[in-house]
């Protein structure tokens, strides 16, 4: 289906709405035509040929060089032949809004300054004014063939009403429609989960920060108990601070890369609430602390490394299970439960520190 009309009549708006109701692709032809800096793209005609070869599509009736291609595939042409006053109001409003917001159009183009209305004879508003009387139903359009049937006409309000009715069809779907709707929705979700990319060295840096934190915790505690000569509290705090900074930084990067927020990643992978991560972390921390307290220094680094590696591996396992079942893994623990866990961890750590410092 094609939508014709001069600039600002609402071709793209109508095409998008029809495409949505019919669930067929809408290709905005302006996006194929305009390259960076409003220059025509060399691949324009080839791309139009490619999409118009598809089973069904909606686009705008524009650009003389591709009209034969479009016409050959179309079985309906809707011409938005609105009063000049309406078109001018719409095109001026759109141009001003786009310019004021510096809205990025196709390939990052923005509308030129508003003063070009006076200087540019091809300015969009002047174009809309002068081409208003042209259209597929009138003499101005050269592609009109002799055998073309007279078009049906209807008021814009009726067209809009028909679309609203189509949008609100609420009859139960057939079994075939139901299963294709579910399959399509699940495919969309699977694609989203598979596109999810981890920032570079995500798991490695988390694992390394955890290892560092385990090591500094053990050494710091032994310092508090007077076993080693290191300034204890600074080492403890530095280890925690590095872990927090690395975790926070990686989460922010993840969000920036993917445009999504994953509660499950926050709590299970970074927060270590997955059973494997919390058990191995607690064991490694306990072993490293014990080793430091009894003065078996060589045992501290391996314990810390094992703790960090186990943490990272548990994270990797979570990511695999997320990709296979995104809906069951997307959300982490509830905020309340995370708060309880945090308080418990802080209490336990503080208790241990006090106990050892006083011993």
């Amino acid at each position, binding site marked *: 289906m094609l939508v014709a009309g001069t600039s600002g009549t609402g071709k793209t708006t109508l095409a998008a709405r029809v495409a949505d109701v019919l669930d067929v692709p809408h290709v905005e032809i302006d996006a194929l035509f305009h390259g960076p800096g409003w220059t025509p793209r060399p691949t324009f005609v080839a791309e139009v040929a490619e999409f118009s070869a598809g089973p069904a599509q909606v686009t705008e009736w524009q650009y003389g060089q591709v009209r034969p291609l479009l016409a050959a595939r179309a079985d309906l042409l809707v011409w938005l032949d609105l009063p000049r006053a309406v078109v001018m109001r719409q095109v001026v409003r759109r141009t001003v809004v786009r310019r004021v917001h510096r809205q990025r159009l196709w390939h990052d183009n923005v509308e030129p300054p508003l003063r070009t209305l006076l200087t540019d004879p091809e300015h969009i508003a002047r174009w809309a004014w002068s081409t208003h009387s042209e259209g597929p139903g009138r003499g101005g359009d050269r592609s009109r063939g002799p055998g073309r049937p007279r078009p049906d006409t209807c008021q814009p309000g009726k067209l809009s009403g028909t679309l609203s009715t189509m949008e609100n069809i609420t009859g139960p*779907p057939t079994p075939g429609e139901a299963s294709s709707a579910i399959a*399509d929705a699940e495919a969309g*979700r699977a694609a989203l989960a598979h596109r999810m990319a981890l920032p570079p060295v995500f798991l490695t840096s988390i694992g390394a920060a955890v290892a560092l934190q385990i090591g500094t915790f053990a050494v710091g505690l032994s310092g508090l108990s007077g076993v080693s000569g290191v300034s204890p509290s600074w080492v403890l705090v530095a280890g925690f601070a590095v872990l927090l900074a690395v975790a926070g930084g990686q989460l922010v990067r993840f969000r920036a890369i993917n445009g999504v927020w994953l509660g499950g990643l926050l709590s299970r992978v970074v927060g270590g609430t997955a059973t494997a991560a919390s058990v191995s972390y607690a064991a490694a921390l306990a072993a490293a602390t014990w080793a430091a307290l009894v003065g078996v220094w060589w045992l501290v680094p391996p314990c810390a490394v094992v703790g960090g590696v186990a943490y990272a591996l548990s994270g990797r396992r979570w990511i695999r299970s997320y990709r296979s079942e995104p809906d069951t893994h997307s959300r982490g623990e509830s905020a309340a439960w995370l708060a309880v866990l945090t308080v418990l961890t802080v209490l336990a750590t503080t208790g241990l520190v006090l106990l050892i410092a006083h011993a």
Partner: protein
Amino acid sequence: MRPDVDPHLHAPARLRLMTMLTAVSEAEFATLRDGLDVSDSVLSKHLSALAAVGYLRSRKGVHRGRRTTWVSLTQEGRRSLSAHIAALREIIAGVD
């Protein structure tokens, strides 16, 4: 008994949008638009319709230095989605 299909989730794009949101805690506008392969105007139309019935919650935020909208499912939306999918599965099972 005829299963209750949710009229708000009848459009395939809406079902896909809601299902995609079950895979995340929150998603940004452009990510959803690319995942659904629709135009900005179509996506915002669906988003406002689904937010109006309380299925979605959206907030203004920033992504890569640009102002954007972050969207997430509500409890109500989650419940309605599972009920709708259950109804669709009943319809499918009805033919066997």
